[in-house]
């Protein structure tokens, strides 16, 4: 089985000359369908760099990254955008909602820009699971932080991406809701058979993950 996401000696260096910072040391990593993976580590350790390279938002300085077997190395921005649109779903710390679109229209926008096969029944089920079915006519500004994050998660899952990348998805949620969200991500990962990678500080969530990696000073190591 081909891994969904592969890092092959991929590293990221910022700056040049004496002022170079190696944010991600040469990393080899692979993730398969149906896996829920945690990346933990202190702030500034390189977790976000790893996540943004995995999401095609920046490219590795050396080595290569493959998504469904396709190398991102020499892709132009237009091709990377296409990969992000078709294969990747993002859940960001700051909610990624369009401020002037109602919750319902956030999904209409996705219907317009991306081909997907979410049936109306699946859609209703997704909204019910995330508890957002009563929020469809609300604008993002009318939602609480937790509601916004749940809508953002629904948005990321809506198009059934092969890879779901989440940067602190539970940061703005209370404990009960955080566990609920993790439980949902776990369920959806198995149901949609995608790869979900979550960057988190919250070690209470570790039991939900299939694999846990720790990032320290740009070095990624799998935990037991």
């Amino acid at each position, binding site marked *: 089985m081909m891994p969904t996401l592969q890092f092959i000696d991929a590293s990221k260096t910022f700056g040049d000359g004496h002022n170079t910072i190696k944010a991600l040391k040469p990393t080899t990593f692979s993730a398969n369908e149906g896996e829920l993976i945690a990346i933990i580590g202190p702030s500034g350790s390189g977790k976000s760099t790893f996540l943004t390279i995995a999401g095609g938002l920046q490219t590795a300085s050396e080595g290569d990254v493959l998504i469904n077997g396709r190398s991102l190395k020499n892709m132009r921005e237009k091709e990377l955008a*296409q990969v*992000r649109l*078709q294969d*990747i779903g993002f859940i960001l710390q*700051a909610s*990624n909602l369009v401020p*002037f*679109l109602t919750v319902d229209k956030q999904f209409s926008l996705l219907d317009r*820009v991306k081909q997907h096969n979410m049936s109306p029944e699946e859609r209703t089920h997704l909204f019910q699971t995330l508890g957002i079915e009563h929020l469809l006519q609300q*604008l993002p500004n009318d939602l609480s932080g937790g509601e916004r994050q749940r809508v953002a998660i629904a948005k990321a899952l809506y198009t059934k991406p092969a890879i779901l990348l989440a940067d602190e998805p539970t940061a703005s949620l209370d404990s009960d809701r955080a566990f609920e969200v993790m439980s949902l991500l776990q369920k959806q990962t198995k149901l949609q058979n995608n790869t979900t990678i979550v960057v988190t500080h919250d070690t209470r969530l570790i039991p939900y993950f299939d694999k846990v990696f720790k990032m320290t000073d740009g070095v990624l190591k799998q935990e037991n």
Partner: protein
Amino acid sequence: MFLAWNEIKQNKLRFILISSVLLLIAYLVFFLSGLVNGLANMNREAVDKWQADAIILTDESDKSLPQSILSTDDVSQVKNANHLAPIAQINAIASRVSDEDTRQGVAIFAVQPDDFIAPNITDGHMFGRKGDVVAADYLKSEGFKVGDKVKLSSSDKYVTIVGFTDHARFNAAPVLYTSFETMQQIKGLPIESDPLVNAVVVQSENISTIKVPTSLEVVETETFIEKLPGYAAQNITLTLMIAFLIVISSVIIAIFLYVLTVQKASMFGVLKAQGISNAYLARSVVAQTFILTVVGVALGFALTWLTGAFLPYKVPVQFDILSMLIYALIFIIVAILGAVFSVLSIFKIDPLKAIGG
């Protein structure tokens, strides 16, 4: 269009204000263009009404009607024109005998009542007797009416208004049409002498075939109008004002749209991070600009017409729908170019920075 329209619907006040700015700029340009037409028309409408192809003047006159004096012999030598109409002109100050305070600068034209340049009558009747004149109907708003005895500054004779005609202003002065006999009388010349003619107005399919004595020249109607005192200078000045206004408003609109787009940079960045293409976002910005500009310009158009309907008779504004449509089109094109310019800023947005990476 989806993003564009939904943003407008959710932020009505902001977009009403933006459209209002476009409305006011369009209104100003439309109104100025109306003023250009109106002022131009004040100079030329009598000549336009003749529907003449050319005017024959003396070579020495520098295409000025009062400076050109033709003899009867000169007129008889003009060949190959379909229609010829001799004309004499003099300027004067006219005032009603019953109320000498009603002074009004006029251009007096002597024409033959059966020539193609003779005035059509909208009120009263055509001049027939000595001393009869047909006046431009603009004089009605100055209190002149059929039957009024009028004193002319250049003469000790009186004339009587026997009728009115429309669209009869020349070089910004209302026209009094009269016979050559009356003109001789006004000028203090003996009626029996050959009438003095300033020019011959011509209708001809091909003016290049018209034969005239060497002392005369055939001047195309448009050239004759361009040479009217002050006409070209006034037109160039006002047209330049409109051109500068369009250039300045184009820059304002472009800056406006740029700021509007830059304000949404983080939102565009997040959408780009999600893989939504530059092209989709660019189309959205351009569509939004198109909607705002069309609404603003259309309302500017309507407001201009509404203003025109309530303006006093004396305000020299005349709206020409074709030139207004051209200006409207220029506005829409300029705004879209401004939007395209602002779209370049979308292309430069780094989605990584926008999501705080």
